[in-house]
C-alpha cells in the first residue's frame, strides 16, 4: 500500500471501534451489483521502477535545447530564475488549499496580494484577481463580464482575427450557453484595427484585440478605447506580460479588461499547462469579477493581515447567481510569477523584453535577406515584439520537418493550421534563450530547407 500508513494491528483496532468485522463491510450502501469492480489497470509498481518508466516515456519525446527552438504561438521558452522552483517546492505553499483560514494562510495570501499588486503595475490596470486557469479561459471570462455589464442589452462580441486562434475557440465554447455571438473581423485584413472598430455598433458588448497580436505585431492602441467607449462597449485586450517590460501597457490606453497568459513569467511550458490566467480590470467592475481577490485588512490586535474578500461574488456563497463557477484557479503559478517578477525587478524585465526585441529583429532581418523568403509580408511596417511571420518558398510543415531531421532545430508555428490563406507561412518566436549562434544556424538551415 503505497502511501497508506496503517499497520494490521491499527486497522483491526479501528474496525473494532467502528463495529465492523472487515474492510469490505464499510460499504453497506453500495449496491452489490456494482460493488468492488475488477479494474483493468497495469499492476502496481515501486517508486524506483516508476521513476525509470517515466524517464523512458519522456525519452520518446524529441528534446532539443531551448536555444534551438523557435516555436511560440502562445507558449514560450524563457529564462526561469532558479529561485522560482525553490519557492514553488516549499510544501507549505504547494500542499496548501485555498486560503479560507486566513490565520494560517498569511504567507500565500500576502504572496497573492503582492502578485495582484505587481500585475496591476505591469498592465496599468486597477484590479487583478488572484489568477485564472489560463489566458484563454481568462479571456472567455472577460467576455462574459462584458456581457454582464451590458445586462443582456448587447449580445455581440467583436473579435480580432489576430487574437490567438485557440483563445477565440475557447470564447466561442463559453458563449454556447448565452445568447451572445462573436463577430470575427476579416482574416485577410488581420492588421487593420480600423476595420474592426467599424464593426462595433449598439449591439456590441466588447471589442477584443490582442497586442502584441498572435503574429507578434503591436497594435496601434491610441484612440481605440475612445471609439469603443463612444459606442458604449468595453475594450478587452489580450497581451504578453514580457512585452509590458518595454511597451506602454494596455491600461494606459484606456482598456477596460486586460488578460494574458502568464506562462512567460517563470512557469515551465509543461506541454501547455498548467499555465497562468492573468485577469485584470477597472475598479468599476470589481463586483462583477470572477475568481478570488486578496485584500489587506487587520487582525483582532490591529496588525496588518490579508484575507480573501468580496466572496459574495463567488459560487460557494452565491451559488446559481455567482459571477462565475470558478473555484480552483492557478494560485501556485501566480506564486511562481510573483517570484519571477520580484527577482527580475524593474530593470530585469526591461532587459528580458529588450533582448526579445533585439534578437527577434536580428533573426527577422537575416531571414528577410534569404531569397524567396519575406518577413511580415502582410504588415512590413508594423512594430513587432518577439514573434514575426515568415512567408516561405515551400509549405511550412515540410520546412519544419527538414529543420528538425537535418539540423536538430524546432522551427516556427505553421500558420496554415489556423489561417488557410497563410499555408506557406511560419510564425517564428525568438526570446532571450536563443543565442546569436542558434539564430545564425536557423537562418542557414532555412535557406537549405527551402531549396
Amino acid at each position: 500500500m503505497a502511501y497508506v500508513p496503517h499497520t494490521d494491528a491499527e486497522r483491526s483496532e479501528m474496525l473494532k471501534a467502528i463495529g465492523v468485522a472487515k474492510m469490505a463491510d464499510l460499504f453497506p450502501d453500495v449496491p452489490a451489483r456494482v460493488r468492488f469492480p475488477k479494474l483493468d489497470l497495469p499492476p502496481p509498481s515501486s517508486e524506483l521502477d516508476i521513476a525509470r518508466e517515466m524517464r523512458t516515456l519522456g525519452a520518446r519525446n524529441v528534446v532539443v535545447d531551448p536555444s534551438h527552438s523557435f516555436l511560440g504561438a502562445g507558449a514560450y521558452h524563457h529564462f526561469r530564475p532558479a529561485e522560482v522552483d525553490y519557492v514553488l517546492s516549499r510544501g507549505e505553499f504547494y500542499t496548501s488549499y485555498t486560503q479560507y483560514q486566513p490565520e494560517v494562510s498569511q504567507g500565500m495570501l500576502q504572496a497573492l496580494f503582492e502578485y495582484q499588486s505587481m500585475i496591476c503595475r505591469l498592465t496599468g490596470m486597477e484590479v487583478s484577481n488572484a489568477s485564472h486557469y489560463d489566458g484563454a479561459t481568462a479571456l472567455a471570462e472577460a467576455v462574459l463580464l462584458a456581457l454582464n455589464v451590458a445586462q443582456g442589452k448587447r449580445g455581440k462580441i467583436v473579435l480580432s482575427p489576430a487574437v490567438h486562434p485557440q483563445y477565440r475557440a475557447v470564447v466561442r465554447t463559453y458563449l454556447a450557453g448565452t445568447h451572445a455571438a462573436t463577430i470575427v473581423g476579416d482574416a485577410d485584413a488581420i492588421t487593420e484595427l480600423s476595420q474592426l472598430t467599424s464593426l462595433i455598433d449598439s449591439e456590441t458588448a466588447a471589442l477584443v484585440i490582442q497586442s502584441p497580436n498572435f503574429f507578434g505585431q503591436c497594435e496601434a492602441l491610441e484612440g481605440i478605447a475612445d471609439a469603443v467607449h463612444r459606442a458604449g462597449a468595453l475594450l478587452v485586450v489580450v497581451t504578453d506580460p514580457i512585452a509590458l517590460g518595454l511597451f506602454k501597457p494596455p491600461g494606459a490606453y484606456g482598456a477596460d479588461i486586460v488578460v494574458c497568459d502568464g506562462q512567460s513569467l517563470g512557469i515551465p511550458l509543461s506541454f501547455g499547462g498548467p499555465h497562468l490566467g492573468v485577469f485584470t480590470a477597472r475598479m468599476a467592475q470589481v463586483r462583477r469579477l470572477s475568481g478570488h481577490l486578496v485584500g489587506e485588512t487587520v487582525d483582532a490586535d490591529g496588525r496588518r493581515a490579508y484575507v480573501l474578500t468580496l466572496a459574495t461574488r463567488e459560487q460557494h456563497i452565491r451559488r446559481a447567481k455567482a459571477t462565475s463557477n470558478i473555484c480552483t484557479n492557478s494560485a501556485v503559478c501566480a506564486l511562481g510569477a510573483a517570484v519571477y517578477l520580484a527577482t527580475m525587478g524593474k530593470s530585469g524585465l526591461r532587459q528580458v523584453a529588450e533582448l526579445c526585441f533585439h534578437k527577434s529583429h536580428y533573426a527577422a532581418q537575416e531571414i528577410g535577406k534569404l531569397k524567396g523568403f519575406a518577413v511580415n509580408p502582410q504588415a512590413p511596417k508594423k512594430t513587432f515584439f518577439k514573434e514575426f511571420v515568415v512567408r516561405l518558398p515551400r509549405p511550412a510543415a515540410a520546412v519544419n520537418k527538414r529543420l528538425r531531421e537535418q539540423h536538430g532545430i524546432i522551427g516556427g508555428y505553421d500558420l496554415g493550421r489556423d489561417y488557410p490563406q497563410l499555408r506557406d507561412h511560419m510564425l517564428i518566436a525568438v526570446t532571450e534563450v536563443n543565442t546569436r549562434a542558434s539564430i545564425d544556424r536557423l537562418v542557414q538551415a532555412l535557406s537549405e530547407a527551402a531549396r
Partner: protein
Amino acid sequence: MSRNATPTLNELSVPGRRGVDLPKPDVPKAKLPTADLREDCGLPELSQLDVVRHYLALSQRNFGVDSGFYPLGSCTMKYNPKINEEIARIPAFAEAHPLQDLDTVQGNLALMFELQQWLAEIGGFAGVTLQPAAGAHGEFTGLLMMRAYHHARGDQRRTRILIPNSAHGTNPASATMVGFTAVELRSDAHGNIDLEAVRSACDDTVAGIMMTNPNTLGLFEEQIEGVVGLVHGCGGLVYGDGANMNALAGIARPGDLGFDVMHFNLHKTFSTPHGGGGPGAGPVGVSERLVDFLPGPLIARQGDSYGLVEPKQSIGRVSTFFGNFGMFVRAYAYIRRHGAAGLRANSEHAVLNANYLRVKLRDAYVVPYDRINMHEFVCEGAIEGTGVRALDVAKRLLDYGFHPPTNYFPLIVPEALMIEPTETESKPTLDAFADAMRAIAQEAKSDPALVKSAPHETPVRRVDEVKAARELILTDRAKVG
C-alpha cells in the same frame, strides 16, 4: 509558524538593487520605437537573497498538508507524493512545447492516451477528455455536452438542471454559465436526496441532474439507482460531481451506476497538489451517447503511434493546448504506483479513517446522520449552552496545530463541520485530532471566552473581513522604494 510580520516587496525595494544579471545582447541592437515605450514598469527592486528570504519567511506563515493534518471536507487533502513532483520536472515533460509536431511528442501523447483509458476504466466510462483545468471547469464542460446532446436530437426544451440542496456551490453556478436553470431539490431525513422530490421534478424540460455521490454528508446515496432511473425515464442525463471520488475508486464505478458524465478532480483523488488553490485538473468521463460531443482534440492510438482526433459533434475547446499536462504526469505516476488493488485500498482506508473519527467524536459533537459513512462525515460544531459555534471550534483547532474541517457546509446541517481525514493519515494522528476536538468541547464549557477568541497561537489572530470588503485594498499602497 512564524508570528513575525513580513514587509511587502514594495517596502523591501531599494532603487538600483538587482536580482538577476542577463547576458548583454549578442546581436546588433535594433532601433526601439519611440512612441510606445514606457519609462518604468513599476516592479520592485530587490537582490536575489532579499527575494529568497522574503518567500521563505512567507512560507513560514502558511500551513499545508506537509505541515500537519488537514481534514478539509470535500477537498481530499491527502499526501502529495514527492516523487511525482520530481517526475513532473523531468525536462522531457517540463520543457516540451505543446505545438511541437506530433512525432516529436509521442511520449507525452502516450502518457495522455493511457491516462484517458485508465480514468475511463476507473469511472466506467466510454470516453474521457483531459482538457478541463479544474472540477468546476469539468462541470461546465459536462453540462455543455449535455446541452449539445439534447440539441442534436432536436430537443431545445430541456433547460432545467436538478441539483440537491446538499450540492457544492459550483454545481448551480456551472448550470447558470451553460444557460440552464438550476432547480434545487430537498434531502430526506436520512441525508439522501428525496426520491419523491426527484419524481415530481422530472418532466420533459429536465436536461439532467447533478449528483454528488457520496453526497456532501459523506453518505452513499441509498436511492441512487432509483434517482438514475427516474431521470433517464424522463429523457434527462445524470451528471456526477466527482469531487468525492476518493471514496469510490475501486469500490464502485459511476458509469456502472448509470451516470452519463462525471468530472475527476486529479488534485483530490489522484494526489496532485492543491497549490494553495490551484492548478488542478478536471478530466471528464462520458457514457457512449456523449462521446461525440467531447471537447477536442482527444488522444488516439493510430497503429504504433499516437495522434489527435476531433470528436464529430465536439462542443469545442475549453482551454488552450491539452489542459494541465503537468498534473497528468503526476496522476499517471500515481495510478501506476497503485494499480487496481492500491486504488481500492486507498478508498477503503479513506472510509475507514472517516468512520473511525465519527465514532471517536459522536459523544462530544452531534452527528446528525450517524450511520456508516464514506470518506467524510458531518458533525455539528455548536456546543450547546456555551455560545460556542462551529467557527469557534474551527479557529481553536488552529491553536492545537490542526487545519480545521470545512465549516458551514453543507448548508443543510446547522453549524456544520465537514471532516475528511483521507487515507494517508495514521491512527495516532486521528487520535490526536479527536483528543483536540474533545478538549475543545470541554473548553467550550469551562472557558468559552478562550474558544470564542481563538486562535491565539497563529501568525495573526482573527482577521477583520468586514473592513477588507469595505475598504477594498487590493494592491499594495506602499510606494515601490
